[in-house]
């Protein structure tokens, strides 16, 4: 049997509340933050203490697919991805880490919200602060809505399934195929390891694709393809998903 060992590779530096970050929070009148970090940066005990000493309330939760509190993964990108709704109760989200893939999940988790919270990214390696907001995913939201509309009107669909253990949803794909059949639609299930979207053009008979693998394929990668593609989560109730996007809470 093949055994598995995971090493999370923590960052060895010390994460400190810098003057610049303190100033940024003060300038934007941030009195409370929903604190998240990628797994390399979740040793934040002293950092939280510093925030609290500066009268900033720190709200913490656990995202569903992660293994520790405060950690965020790219796939925890839905409004129900968190144990507690701390985003709603915070002035802003503070993300500790580098790159944009993980903090963008925090933007995507709010696409149905009227009370959208900005994300302050603090990169402790480069010692840089960057803020991202709803406008940074506006193109994605528009394409997502367009794809949902095209899905509703499609008769022939392709359901993509990966063999990656943590992303494999063959049973859900089969359930969806049955449901679509009841609606008079025809669906085919396609299986691969990496979902390489350049393969889509080889199947011109498919009018719309449904992704069952990483949900970020249906939110981010759609910008690079012309054919409509939606995530399976929305495929069971596409009209409801569309209405929720149009009537932000």
């Amino acid at each position, binding site marked *: 049997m093949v055994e598995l060992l995971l090493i999370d590779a*923590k960052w060895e530096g010390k994460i400190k509340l810098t003057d610049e970050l303190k100033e940024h929070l003060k300038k934007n009148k941030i009195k409370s933050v929903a604190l998240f970090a990628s797994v390399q940066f979740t040793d934040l005990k002293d950092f939280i203490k510093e925030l609290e000493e500066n009268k900033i309330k720190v709200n913490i939760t656990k995202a569903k697919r992660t293994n520790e509190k405060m950690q965020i993964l790219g796939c925890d990108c839905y409004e129900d991805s968190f144990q507690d709704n701390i985003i709603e109760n915070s002035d802003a989200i503070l993300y500790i880490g580098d790159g944009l893939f993980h903090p963008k999940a925090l933007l995507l988790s709010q696409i149905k919200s009227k009370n959208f919270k900005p994300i302050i990214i603090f990169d402790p390696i480069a010692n840089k602060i960057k803020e991202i907001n709803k406008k940074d995913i506006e193109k994605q939201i528009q394409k997502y809505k367009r794809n949902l509309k095209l899905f509703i009107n499609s008769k022939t669909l392709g359901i993509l399934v990966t063999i*990656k253990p943590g992303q494999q949803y063959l049973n859900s794909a089969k359930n969806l195929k049955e449901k679509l059949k009841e609606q008079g639609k025809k669906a085919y299930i396609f299986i691969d390891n990496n979902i390489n979207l350049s393969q889509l053009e080889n199947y011109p008979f498919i009018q719309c694709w449904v992704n069952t693998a990483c949900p970020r394929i249906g939110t981010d990668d759609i910008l690079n393809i012309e054919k409509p593609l939606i995530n399976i989560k929305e495929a069971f109730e596409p009209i409801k998903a569309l209405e929720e996007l149009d009537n932000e809470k």
Partner: protein
Amino acid sequence: MYNLELNKLIQEIKKRNSKQVLIQLPDGLKKGSDKIIDFIEDKTDAKAFIWFGSCFGACDLPLGMDILKIDLIVQLGHNKFNKEVW
């Protein structure tokens, strides 16, 4: 800069008596994969290999490695992933 816990890794390989180890790294760590392999092969009797392809997270593990008689997969940069069941 990142703590790869290579001494722990060596201990684990010895404890498990692993003979063939596959190292899987996210893109940002791939450039240092040669040093990890050299370290393992220097400190243990195991043969070590590098997964060439993707490493999107702990959701993304190489399959079929038993065919190659790999007995330990080590993925760095990620922790346990809780798959959503629905």
